[in-house]
């Protein structure tokens, strides 16, 4: 472990520094709030020669992801970033390029989806890319953003994976928040992540090939899809290997999940991304007043580390899965995945409550966590539990009056 410089960085800047320290060679870009600072920073570094390679402003996220996948197929290290409506616009390309099996790192800065339109965060955007075949790492801190971009390339480029890795961070709460981040020097970064050398055939002028093949009859399609599934599952092993190496070089260790005061916890909050910090703070305060609370943070979300999650949650009495997303007509998106992982365990929790909160940037405070504890103790509490209160209703009603009534102007 050599010198690492500690600097105040936003989550966005930490993402850009991750790409810089990975020595990325191609960045196709399209701006969108709250992600723009990432590609802006990279554009500057390419322009002033700090980064060698090519930065291209694209005409949309759809072509941006296509360009990223194509460049990945030529054997260069690729980085790109998006958010919200942008990543949705690129959705067709995301499914397409994961099938091409070209590695890259994509950063998504979470922002809630229209309609109504907003700029503030929740996780419906990243959850919508859940089934594309991407590897997903969710960051709680600016340090994790930087570290996951570096680790992401190790996973994406592993010959047993060859898939894009998406690193997620929350808009505003992380993207625009500065906190101290350790940045290694370039040599040290290169020891952990050597320059990219493709382990698979790449496009060359002298060697024609095709990657976007058409297949018919089902069996061939199924075979390729099953291969993709296995490659994605392999990424859990690669994540753990990369994490071990990362600790060796930089002294920070990342498991696929993080247990916070979990050992003797009777009440467990399951959370991901930057609001996990708020959950941890609530856990400490609850413990001060004698309530044995704990928190399980999801880091690796795809592949889904079902064993790690089930082992962490089994044996605890009451679990609340807090989803900052909403599948209308169903509820929280991670909830059923977590319940499924526990189904075969005899010592599974007696109660697993689904909680919906933090939609469109709605803040979560200690009183919300206390309300969750109260509902975990209620035998008849309905599920999902919405973190929604009288104050929310009255501010909604106030705006509705302006939107609906002519008299509002008089």
């Amino acid at each position, binding site marked *: 472990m050599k010198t690492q410089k500690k600097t105040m960085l936003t989550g966005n800047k930490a993402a850009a520094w991750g790409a810089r320290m990975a020595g990325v060679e191609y960045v196709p870009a399209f701006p969108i709030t709250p992600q723009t600072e990432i590609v802006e920073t990279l554009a500057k570094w390419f322009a002033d020669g700090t980064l060698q390679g090519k930065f291209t402003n694209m005409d949309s996220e759809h072509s941006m992801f296509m360009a990223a996948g194509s460049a990945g197929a030529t054997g260069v290290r690729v980085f790109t970033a998006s958010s919200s409506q942008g990543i949705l616009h690129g959705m067709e390309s995301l499914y397409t390029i994961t099938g091409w099996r070209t590695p890259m790192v994509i950063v998504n800065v979470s922002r809630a989806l229209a309609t109504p339109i907003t700029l503030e965060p929740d996780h419906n955007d990243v959850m919508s890319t859940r089934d594309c075949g991407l590897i997903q790492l969710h960051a709680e801190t600016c340090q994790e953003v930087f570290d996951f971009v570096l680790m992401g390339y190790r996973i994406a480029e592993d010959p047993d994976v060859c898939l894009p890795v998406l690193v997620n961070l929350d808009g505003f*709460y992380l993207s*625009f928040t500065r906190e101290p981040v350790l940045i290694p020097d370039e040599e040290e970064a290169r020891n952990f992540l050597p320059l990219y050398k493709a382990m698979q055939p790449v496009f060359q002028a002298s060697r024609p090939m095709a990657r976007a093949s058409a297949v018919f009859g089902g069996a061939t399609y199924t075979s390729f899809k099953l291969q993709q599934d296995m490659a994605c599952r392999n990424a859990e092993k690669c994540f753990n290997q990369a994490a071990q190496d990362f600790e060796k070089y930089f002294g920070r260790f990342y498991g696929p999940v993080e247990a916070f005061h979990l050992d003797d916890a009777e009440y467990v909050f399951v959370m991901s991304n930057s609001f996990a910090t708020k959950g941890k703070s609530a856990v*400490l305060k609850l413990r001060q007043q004698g309530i044995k609370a704990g928190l399980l943070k999801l880091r690796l979300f795809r592949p889904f580390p079902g064993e790690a999650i089930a082992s962490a949650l089994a044996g605890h009495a009451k679990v609340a899965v807090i989803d900052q997303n909403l599948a209308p007509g169903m509820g929280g998106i991670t909830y059923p995945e977590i319940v499924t992982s526990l189904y075969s365990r005899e010592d599974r929790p007696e109660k697993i409550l689904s909680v919906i909160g933090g939609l469109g940037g709605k803040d979560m405070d200690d009183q919300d966590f206390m*309300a969750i504890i109260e509902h975990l103790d209620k035998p008849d509490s309905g599920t999902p539990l919405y973190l929604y209160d*009288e104050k929310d*209703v009255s501010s909604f009603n106030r705006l509705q009056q302006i939107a609906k*009534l002519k008299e509002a102007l008089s």
Partner: protein
Amino acid sequence: MWRIRMHGRGGQGIKTASQILGSAGFYSGFQAQDFPLYGAERRGAPVIAFTRISKDAILERGPISSPDIILIGDETLLNDPQSAPLCGAEPTTIIFVNSNHRPKELSQKFEVITANLTDLCLQRLNGRTIYSSALSAVGARLLGTIELEDLLQAVEDELPGVSSQMLKGNLDLAREVFEMVQPVAIPQRVEKALTAKPLVFPQHLPVVDGAPIILDPGNMALRKTGNWRVERPEIDYDHCNKCLICYARCPDGVISLAPDGRPEIDYDHCKGCLICAQECPGHFIKTVRETGIFP
């Protein structure tokens, strides 16, 4: 942990002030975090920024609802309902207002510390009112735990790309303000026992209320963007020849025609862009700095 909340307007350097204070705290050996909050608006619109400085790990994120210190860069925001700079203040909260007024004129309810940063900025920064260095210096000094050299280093690091003359002005300004302000004792907070928020189950509404439908267009008139103004244009009617170029050029359509053909500015909605003053061929529109506390 010390929680500092700053209020000002877009363009006054409030976000940068929170970053200078964050970096200064970090250089003085603390954990630090800073975070700005503004909507899709622009110059003149209220801006809030937050800095957290702590000896231990900071397990908080996002807006600060109960600050230890409130720094108000623009006194005209004091009674602004959207900005609500005193929201969450307790009798023990340290409140600083950049103002020429006496503290009692600014608030009956709270003890307020004041200093006239505007004049200092005008002097040191070549006639500009950018409060980033001055306001962060106030914060650093009130805390009493941040070294002057760390503050000056932070000013230098957070103002990349400014001219050497402007940087010197900012450094001088930060030093002057730092030496002018006295540290205060920040009371220790007593953590209250957590109570559960009473939650409600949402009721289904007819689509007209349940969907984001606006039946009453034109309601932007309710949004008094006039309080974004840092400077107000004033028409000199003794010389105005009613050429109506200001009326044509106003990007917000807030100049209307009086029955006698004179242009009239709607100050409830004029954002103070001052394009009218720029465009007036006879230079008959003067600009006046907004000061004072709006009721």
